């Protein structure tokens, strides 16, 4: 017999409102369903009533962690529609903030992953170091979360020599620490044993379900917009796509730490080769009729904006697809045939309290549903049947 456990949208253990319905048999998840919309704000509809400049700040508020991603994706599309050529210095500063944001987002995720795996000292170390990059972002942009550095045609703030030196200094510290975490995350036995083999997503499924970002890259799909469709400055930078082929949570941790190291490389290149000149050019108030597709590699994966202009100062349509939506079908597959105890790990930022949510009072056969006293032979028969339907969990491998 299977039970359906509702988790969320309002749940003491959830950090963000999302509604999950887990169908479980004993401790094994047989089906998972995601219901969205609790936090739906109708931003695409609102965008049609605001002008091009106001929409930068609207796009920035789509997400609180990768806020710069949405604003940049929107702005680079609008610049194409208006046929603007932003100055090189402005672009370098804009994508410098992008990479710093990726660093802060990956460090945040890494800490949460450590916390969900029960490795809280890892979480505290990582979040302590995240403050370095948060301070750098505040120094460059003036804000810690919504940076608001983008303008149509460039950026709003310049970078001076002292700030450049501070960025390089901060990145050097972070680089040393991240190498230590890569070593720790890949070799600390209890941490590896907890995350290896959990939340499997095969390469074929990742491709079929259109997974994106580190989720796809951890399944061996080398898909990265920065390489495939290099926008703005990325064809001038030297970096690699980081992949792993373990297809599990361990792979996702390793991919993210390696991406941190690549981001430090890019930040150093951008700061050292920062061109001289203006940081912004003047933008017109209206855009000619036309359409543009803008793609951007956000920390969580590909971010895509489709913008249609009708000749006025407002967009005819602004379609936004954030990377997490693209990863939901894959997440459902990862949860299936897993353990309840792995939900927080697989869902990473979500920490649902399953055992409090559903608790049986009588002794109930999980398949038949009858309340009864069972004989040893029955138990043995059921144990064999259960073994045949055992959840898929790979053995802990030592990939590093």
């Amino acid at each position, binding site marked *: 017999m299977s039970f359906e456990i509702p988790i969320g949208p309002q749940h003491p253990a959830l950090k963000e409102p999302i509604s999950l319905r887990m169908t479980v048999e004993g401790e094994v998840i047989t089906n998972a369903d995601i219901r969205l919309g609790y936090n*739906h704000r*109708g931003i695409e*509809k609102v965008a049609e009533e605001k002008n091009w400049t106001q929409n930068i700040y609207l796009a920035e508020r789509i997400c609180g962690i990768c806020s710069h991603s949405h604003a940049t994706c929107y702005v680079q599309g609008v610049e194409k529609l208006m046929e603007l050529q932003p100055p090189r210095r402005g672009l370098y500063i804009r994508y410098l903030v992008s990479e710093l944001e990726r660093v802060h987002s990956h460090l945040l995720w890494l800490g949460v992953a450590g916390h969900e795996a029960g490795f809280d000292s890892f979480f505290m170390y990582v979040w302590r170091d995240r403050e370095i990059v948060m301070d750098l972002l505040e120094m460059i942009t003036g804000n810690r979360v919504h940076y608001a550095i983008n303008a149509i045609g460039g950026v709003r703030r310049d970078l001076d020599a002292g700030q450049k030196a501070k960025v390089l200094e901060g990145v050097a510290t972070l680089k040393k620490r991240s190498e230590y975490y890569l070593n720790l995350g890949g070799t600390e036995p209890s941490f590896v044993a907890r995350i290896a083999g959990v939340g499997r997503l095969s390469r074929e499924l990742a491709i*079929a379900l259109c997974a994106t970002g580190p989720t796809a890259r951890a399944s061996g799909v080398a898909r990265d917009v920065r390489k495939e*469709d290099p926008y703005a400055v990325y064809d001038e930078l030297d970096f690699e796509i980081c992949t792993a082929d373990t297809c599990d949570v361990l792979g996702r941790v390793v991919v993210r730490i390696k991406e941190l190291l690549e981001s430090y490389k890019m930040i150093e290149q951008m700061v050292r080769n920062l061109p001289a000149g203006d940081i912004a050019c003047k933008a017109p108030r209206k855009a000619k009729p036309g359409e543009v597709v803008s793609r951007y590699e956000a920390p969580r994966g590909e971010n895509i904006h*489709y913008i249609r202009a009708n000749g006025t100062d407002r967009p005819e*349509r602004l*379609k936004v*697809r954030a990377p997490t939506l*693209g990863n939901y079908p894959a997440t459902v597959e990862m949860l299936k045939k897993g353990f309840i105890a792995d939900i927080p790990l697989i869902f990473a930022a979500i920490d649902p309290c399953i055992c409090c949510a559903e608790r049986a009072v009588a002794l109930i056969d999980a398949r038949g549903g009858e309340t009864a006293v069972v004989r040893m032979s029955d138990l043995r028969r059921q144990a064999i049947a259960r073994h045949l339907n055992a959840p898929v969990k790979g053995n802990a491998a030592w990939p590093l």
Partner: protein
Amino acid sequence: MSDTEIVERLKGDLGARALEIANPDRRRIFLKVAPADLVAAVTLLRDRYDCAFLSTISGLDAGEAFEVLYHFASPVTTIHVRTATPRSDPRLPSICAVIPGAVLYEREIQEMFGIVVDGIPDGRRLNLPDDWPDGVFPMRKDWKHVRPEEVIPGGKP
């Protein structure tokens, strides 16, 4: 392979089924097909052009018709398949049999624009609340949000 080569190959493969092919920018190819040819075109893109990755599906209310764009990406370019369906009877075939990852996007255009997706494996609502009235589609241009007047319980009338 460059964009011009892909455009030429698409013209050869699709023939008269390609109603319009444009390449306005580097790595941006816009292809227009009729809804009846959509599944065939998507299958072709997946099998012969390495376009198995669907970024998203965008809908647009263009007055008499709804325009729908399927944004595909391959390692070398992006192909955006455009199709249109009349407002009086908006219908599109589902591409989930070819691209299983399309289901959430199809659910979204179904509830936001009222386009009926034939053969969708899961036709439930995605974002709108359960008590949302039937036949009201918020992303259509004729739908306007009216903020309900705020009533403070126990406040002055």
